């Protein structure tokens, strides 16, 4: 059996899932426009940038174990 990942990194991994997937009714709208983009598109683009950050933190945690 593979060693299960740490609870902390699983919790971290849930952040992008919540932000981009489960919370869709909260951010799927046009206003407010950010940098001229509709809000939903801006939100996704922001999280495309933030997800590697979250993964980077998870990488450090998993590496220590």
């Amino acid at each position: 059996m593979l060693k299960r990942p740490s609870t902390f990194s699983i919790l971290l991994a849930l952040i992008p899932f919540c932000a981009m997937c489960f919370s869709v009714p909260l951010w799927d709208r046009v206003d407010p426009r950010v940098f001229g983009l509709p809000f939903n598109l801006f939100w996704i683009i922001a999280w495309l940038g933030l997800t590697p950050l979250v993964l980077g933190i998870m990488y450090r945690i998993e590496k220590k174990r």
Partner: protein
Amino acid sequence: MSEGTEALSVIFGIVAAGSCIGFLASKRRALNLEEWAVAGRGLGLILVWILLAGETFTTFSVLGISGWIYSRGGPILYVLVYLTLAQIVVFFVGPGLWELGRKFGLQTLGDFFAKRYGDRFLAMTVGLAGVFFLILYLQLQLTGLGLIVEVASFERVGRTPAMVCSTVVVAGFVLASGVRGVVWVSVLKDFLLVAVALVVGIGLPYIHFGGIGPMFTELIKAKPGYLTMPGGTTNLTHSWFISTVCVNSLLLGWPHFFGSIFTAKDGDTVRRNAIIMPFYMIPLILIVFAGCAALLVAPGLPNGDLALLAVVRRTFSPWVLGVIGGAGALTAMVPGAIQILTAATLFAKNVYRPLVSPELSEEDTALVAKVAVGGITAVALCLALNSSTTLVGLLIVAYSGISQFVPGIILGLYSRRVTSRGVLFGMLAGFAVAGSLIFTHQDPFHGINAGFVGLVANVVTLLAVSRLSRPTPNGFESSGALPIRRI
């Protein structure tokens, strides 16, 4: 030179350059099955990144995404989201899978099931189903390729000859260089595609509207509500979005994606690759911008898949269209090649060998795989020439199918309780439920993606049958005590 000739020569030049790279990539390496299918497990971070990006950034990403935003609007955001979230799944299971792959010589998805559960019938079912879904995906690539070349050459090259010629070339370099050839063609393709995405994603909004912001302002005014869900549709709602993202983020179940994990030189490379993968979504965002521009500049096209090419043809000089045509052709050829290669290896190792001659040597298996390349390519080509489904329609069926492999993979890695019967019946239940919903036109089913409904049936059946059936020894722990001698 007429505009058609100009565009056509650029397309031809690009495809020829790509094909040369493909044919020469593995020139000085012994091409055994291990090198052919998993590049001798020797690719570093950058090459793995390019391979995985090459697989995920397909014709669908160019024509399908712009086509969806054109005909459906907001729901297209699901693509950007699932491709990113899929990396999180790979982050967790990738390194462990790679380690098992090296230890037990796994090359395909079928190998995994055969070794973990020691069940040839299960592995064969996975193999056959995998080949089937890969052929659907391949058909999508070929259809997209035909469209691109036809439009980009100003109808100078018909869809059929374009599809036939490029399919032959793809099969050729798959045979000649295996997965390493595909990786190197992908390098050229990636450079071109990023350039194309920049030109269309930034150029089109600036030329026609004076900027990206003004373009959206105009679009929101012209089509209020189009950019949020359900956009131009009635049934692609938020529940559809959530369920589809969940299903598609299991793209680990794609046999070619699964197999490319083994091409990395170590498990850490797989994990670091997952971290940087979301950056590859930037070109896709640009394609979304281009699709929005098409919606305003070239409204009323019957086939949304043609929207991007139509607007480019109205805006730029023919050679730009030629570059897009060439890059687009490579975008179909790279994933197409990897899909052919994976389907052929799956067929040879996990269907033909156990079924026809279990004693087949590694060399002969490689030979069978190469013959299978021809057969699989021909089937996909015939389907592509004779069917009229849109690109998205094909992809949705295929994703609903491949996600059914994933419970067996993940539970197989982390749980002792799952049994081979459980996995088999779960998978079949998933196929049956998702398939019957899709073919009776009930996808989405009450706002939920049919693949997701199938996945629920799959997991429930898997757990129930596993509880009732005899425990299956884990082939990764008790090596040697298995009914199968060789994987």
